[in-house]
């Protein structure tokens, strides 16, 4: 297991190297000169030339790539062209923001999704099954931005129950330590602020978690249906175990393997692809960071952002693979 983990971690290096090369090439294939984009239509040619020179864009691509790579190996993700700030400093709080949101979105998606899937499978073709699968279908097909706006309209504007934007109260911010505001507010022992932070999480987490929830529910249902038909489940039943034991102790464990794969993939997707949710709820996460970077042709930001997301994705896949062995001891590495 340890050897396997080490091998997987070593494989990270070529994967990430490949990622940097691909992102670097793609980013430079986007037509347009960042200096022109940053300065806009009122820029004079000399200003554009000056800025281009200052940003080091007049160097050949290979040189630019080399410089970038050298920096990354020293743990320096470079400097944003637009803000001139260090990306290493800028990206940390954003990763925390996205992680926090993803965690709560997946928490709700997994909890509701798996349980709905189980009940659907257990009571196959019941009204609950039809209803749950209908909502799952709606959930998968619903545009996130629409759901998000409707949530905001109903719960923030009309009912005034929950805040419409941001990670915390604008006027009463938390002193950041880890930038995970749930953790920070606990560390500060500020429970009022903890409630505020949790309240800010509700709407975006629901919006972001809806699609994974629907996917997980469908996956759990089909996987459970298969397992429930297997011989060993019949044996357990014959032993006279109660339904709850049969389902949660015996059937679920085997049904969980494909579900776990989906959960892992979805978590990865959410980490990198929460752009819509992050935009509508003004959540300063990594998705928006890369998106703004693309708008301004901010090459280093795009490269580093994608690099970080790719890294997280690979790590999550690794964790999922290791969890397989934990859930099903027959799997050995």
């Amino acid at each position, binding site marked *: 297991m340890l050897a396997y983990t080490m091998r997987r971690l070593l494989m990270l290096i070529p994967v990430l190297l490949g990622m940097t090369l691909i992102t670097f090439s793609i980013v430079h294939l*986007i*037509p*347009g*000169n960042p200096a*022109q*984009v940053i*300065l*806009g*239509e*009122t*820029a*004079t*040619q*000399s*200003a554009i030339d*000056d800025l281009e020179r*200052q940003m080091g864009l007049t160097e050949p691509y290979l040189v630019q790539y080399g410089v970038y790579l050298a920096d990354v190996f020293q743990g320096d993700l470079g400097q944003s*062209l*637009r*803000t*001139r*700030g260090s990306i290493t400093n*800028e990206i940390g*709080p*954003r990763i925390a923001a996205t992680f926090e949101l993803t965690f709560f979105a997946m928490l709700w998606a997994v909890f509701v999704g798996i*349980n709905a899937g189980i*009940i659907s499978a257990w009571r196959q073709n019941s009204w609950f099954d039809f209803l749950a699968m209908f909502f799952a279908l709606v959930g998968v097909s619903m545009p996130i*931005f629409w759901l*998000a*706006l409707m949530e*905001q*309209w109903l719960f*923030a*504007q009309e009912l*005034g*129950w*929950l*805040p*419409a*934007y941001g*990670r915390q*109260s*604008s*006027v*009463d*911010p938390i002193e950041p330590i880890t930038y995970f505001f749930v953790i920070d507010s606990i560390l500060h022992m500020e429970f*009022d602020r903890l*409630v*505020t932070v*949790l*309240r*800010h999480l*509700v709407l975006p987490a629901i919006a972001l978690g809806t699609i994974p929830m629907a996917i997980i529910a469908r996956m759990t249902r089909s996987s459970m249906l298969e397992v429930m038909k297997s011989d060993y489940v019949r044996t357990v039943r014959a032993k006279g175990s109660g339904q*709850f034991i049969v389902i949660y102790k015996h059937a679920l464990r085997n049904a969980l393997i494909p579900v776990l794969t989906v959960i892992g993939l979805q978590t990865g997707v959410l980490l990198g692809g929460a752009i819509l949710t992050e935009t*509508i*709820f*003004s959540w*300063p996460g990594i998705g928006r*960071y890369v998106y703004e970077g693309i708008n301004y*042709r901010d090459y280093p930001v795009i490269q580093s952002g994608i690099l970080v997301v790719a890294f997280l994705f690979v790590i999550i896949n690794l964790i999922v693979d290791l969890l397989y062995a934990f859930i099903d001891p027959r799997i050995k590495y």
Partner: protein
Amino acid sequence: MKFKFSFLLAIMIAFVLVLAACGGDDDDSESEDQDSGTEDTEQEDTDSEDDTDSESEGDDAAEGGDGEGGTLVYARGGDSESLDYASTTDGESSRVTKQIYESLLDFEEDSFEIKAGLAHDWDVNDDGTVYTFHLEEGVTFHDGSDFNAEAVKTNFERWADPEHEFAFEDDGYVYSMYGTMFGGFQGDDGHVIDEINVVSDHEIEFVLSEPLGFFLQNMAMSYFAITSPQALEEYGPEISENPVGTGPFQFENWSRDDQIVLSKFDDYREEGLPVLDEVIFQVIPDNAARLIALNSGEVHIMDGLNPDDAAGVDSDENLELYTREANNVGYVGFNNEKIDDADVRRAINHAIDRQAIADALYAGYAIPAVTPVPPGYLGYNDELESYEYDPELAQEMLADAGYEDGMEIELWTMPVARPYMPDPETVAEIIQNNLSEVGVEAEIVREEWAPYLERTSAGDHEMFMLGWSGTNGDPDYFLGPLLHGSNVGESNRTFYQNDEVDELLDQAKRAVDQDERAELYQEAQALIYEDSPMVPLVHSEPVLASSSVVENYVPHPSTSESLKEVELNQ
């Protein structure tokens, strides 16, 4: 067993509800505020909007914690690039730095008229080459250092001289607005500021190599405000994240893509100002979400309202609608080298229905344009009238010009939305329709933003859409870059060259007497109108909204207004 599932589900739902309902924290008091606000208007319809005292209870004053003035939350679509105003051209940056910094002069609150700023008086010699500014005394920067003539000199030298110790050239600082407004940098041919002499501690003299008609306008721009030299020394290139000025608010903190917090500067030079204790610039990228945040009482002012939402805001008693004076132009330009027949250009001017565009895309918050210069500007020629929409006349004129069988033309459309062109694709389609009515077949060409700008500069196009936004409130900033022959191949993408117009623009640029300048610009506009090198479409009037508790808020056409007099009435 079933019981267990429903039990867990119930706990989950209960948890959500508890979070939603649980009192005592900030957002809750905000939503209470919103609730009571609605009740207020229901019960007391006749009350004017300033009578909202009962809304006050737990809101912002308590949250801000400091004093009476309260905390204003200003919501906008994007974050600032940098808080070093001179090294960026980003409007979201100067919107914030306007609060932190001051310039030698200032604009009136709703126009580009000049008024005193850090200089209370100023003189100019007869030929307009020596400007002397008399500076306010006893003014201190937020870091406690003194504001004086030396500080002014340091700032201007920093922008002009790339070798200056505070120019931070190696860190990527480029002062493009300085180059544009003062004709380049130290050592360049067109650079107009020859010398800056410190006459005394509070008197400074600018010697120009040639007169510059809009020199005073420039001095009022927020791009040329004064930074504390001590802070430049202390922070170096990090000055962009640690702004230190003399303005009514001082910088507190900045979390990128989220919020910038400013607090009241207690030693501000004007007694009793600013009124607010704290200002928060909050980024909410999505227009609809920003309006919801305003409706739910979480923010006080929002910029960037969709014109389509303006009617709803206007009829809502809890909200206030504002328009900014027009300070831009959206236009369709011809490549005058390819479409070289003025009759054809005039015919197309007659073929395009500007009013329809203003109504369809800006919900009426736009003025059909006659020339590139926005109305209200110095030298705006109000004797000219927009080419009338008349497809039949246009068809006749085209026939006379030899195109009785119609013609084909490329129309380049910009890929990004701009304040002067919120939906370029739809405008392109309207124009395409208009043109097909007079027998002109327009093919819409699409291109990415940067190549679009580059290729239109190079003249690859026949017709193209673009616009221009003002910064210093001077007509030269519209007519010069867009239509002066010397800017062909750069900002003059119409490739229009008329020696007479160039001569008038040059004269007006060098003249010091503003009445004389106004006449010259009017004359130039008349010639341009006749040649019609472009179809000026509209000057848009951006709309924005605030909660009705906000008072004394006056939007400035430049999009950067001082919030020092704004009050929260609660």
